[in-house]
């Protein structure tokens, strides 16, 4: 029984990851393009909180590697950033799960900021820095999306159980 549910959950994780990867490269109008929330990272955080057994560090790292391959950045750059976020999430997982939603959103905001900073930093090291302030918009938009995402995925998880 436990394995059956595990598989269902695994399918769900895979589905959300594919969805987020597609969302990452869907063409958007130029105005809202820089503000595209990093859905994949939010999913990784969510699954690290709710299904830590499936979504471990290796999972997060592979997601990051997929981002690198898909967007053609330096191989390993996003993988390292995803890994760091997943690590921090797993460290504080037991606490974060019982946070009230606003507190949780704030924590996610901070995780997203750490992520963007690491990506920005590695960009700077390899001499391709993007210094426009617009690159920090996904941190805000991602944090704004988080409560909605949690509500939707929670409903889905409860129904699917």
């Amino acid at each position: 029984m436990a394995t059956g549910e595990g598989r269902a959950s695994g399918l769900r994780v895979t589905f959300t990851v594919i969805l987020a990867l597609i969302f990452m490269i869907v063409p958007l109008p130029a105005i809202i393009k820089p503000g595209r929330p990093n859905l994949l990272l939010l999913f990784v955080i969510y699954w690290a909180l709710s299904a830590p057994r499936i979504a471990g560090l290796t999972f997060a790292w592979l997601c990051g590697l997929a981002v690198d391959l898909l967007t053609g950045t330096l191989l390993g750059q996003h993988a390292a950033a995803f890994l760091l976020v997943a690590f921090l999430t797993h460290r504080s997982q037991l606490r974060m799960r019982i946070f009230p939603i606003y507190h949780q959103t704030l924590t996610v905001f901070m995780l997203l900021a750490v992520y963007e900073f690491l990506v920005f930093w590695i960009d700077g090291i390899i001499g391709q820095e993007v210094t426009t302030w617009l690159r920090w918009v996904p941190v805000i938009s991602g944090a704004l999306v988080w409560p909605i995402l949690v509500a939707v995925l929670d409903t889905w998880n409860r129904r699917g159980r």
Partner: protein
Amino acid sequence: MVTLSSDSRPIIGRGPPLGASFFFLALLSVIIMVVDHRGGYLETASGWLRMATQPFYAVVDAPSQAWNWLTNSFADRGDLRRDNQRLNEQLRTARVKLLRFDALIEENQRLRAIREASQGISERTLIAEIIKVDVDPFRHRVRIDKGSEDGVFKDQPVLDAFGIVGQVTRVDRYGAEIILISDAAHAVPVQINRNGIRSIAVGLGDVGKMSLPYLTVEADAKVGDLLVSSGLDGIFPSGYPVARITKVERDPAETFAVVEAKPLAQLDRIREVLLLWQRSPSATVPAVNDSAPTAVEKGKEKERPNASVPAPTSIPAQPSTRPAAAPSAAPAATPPPTEPAPTTAPANTPSRPAQ
């Protein structure tokens, strides 16, 4: 609050400890990053991995493909007729122009033969389609649907019907990534078509604007001047239109004028681009991969200090095959042996400043 799924036991205390696997994976990513950044030893491995991402591009591109197909197949009869007429007219005018060019090409070849210079460029082109995906909002990179299977190679020049679009930065099996000339990390060596003054057109990260930072205050540049590629980088063939000057600001107190230009290629609207082979692809591919300086893409930092001194040099009015004065930015921009057209002699002639 996040719902706990059935298997929500913490992973701490199970399997390898969290810190250990974090450390291991972090080390792995650092190694991958270093290896990928220096030397690109991962070309083949990442090429195979990138093939796995191809379905994602296909899925994302599918709606716009379908829309194109729909509009094409249900096009109005009247529209088609009008299109046909317009295209016929264009073809006729182009033919007339070509008649003149035929004579010019022959004359050019005769003159080259007299001067015993290299033969003119024999070129092959291939149309590639741009895949409608957003890879990075802050960099001007696009993906095309032709890859190494079609003979596309790194640093290959990419054009459209109006001018230079960019160059290939990465090649997969069935796709490639091109960097547009408007990317902030890209620069094209150009010369003003009217008088042959050479400079470098640097992208600004804005599709409608490029900057020419190395034209001195007294350089003869006017609004409306056409900038063509000078071919000094060994990547872009010489003589292709790049941009048109839109703004020249001269402050007598400064050394360099503020010159802006608008790219001629329709960087934000194109759907199809032309890939250019300067000789047969079999001859070009290995040679270019080995010896082509990755001049323009990364060379911005390299060229900046050098080019500030001699860049705006003037050469005799007609573009000659042997540059009278090459900017000593040349180390970054010496043409590889396969580059056919310019510099039959190493261009170490001391450069002359602008008059």
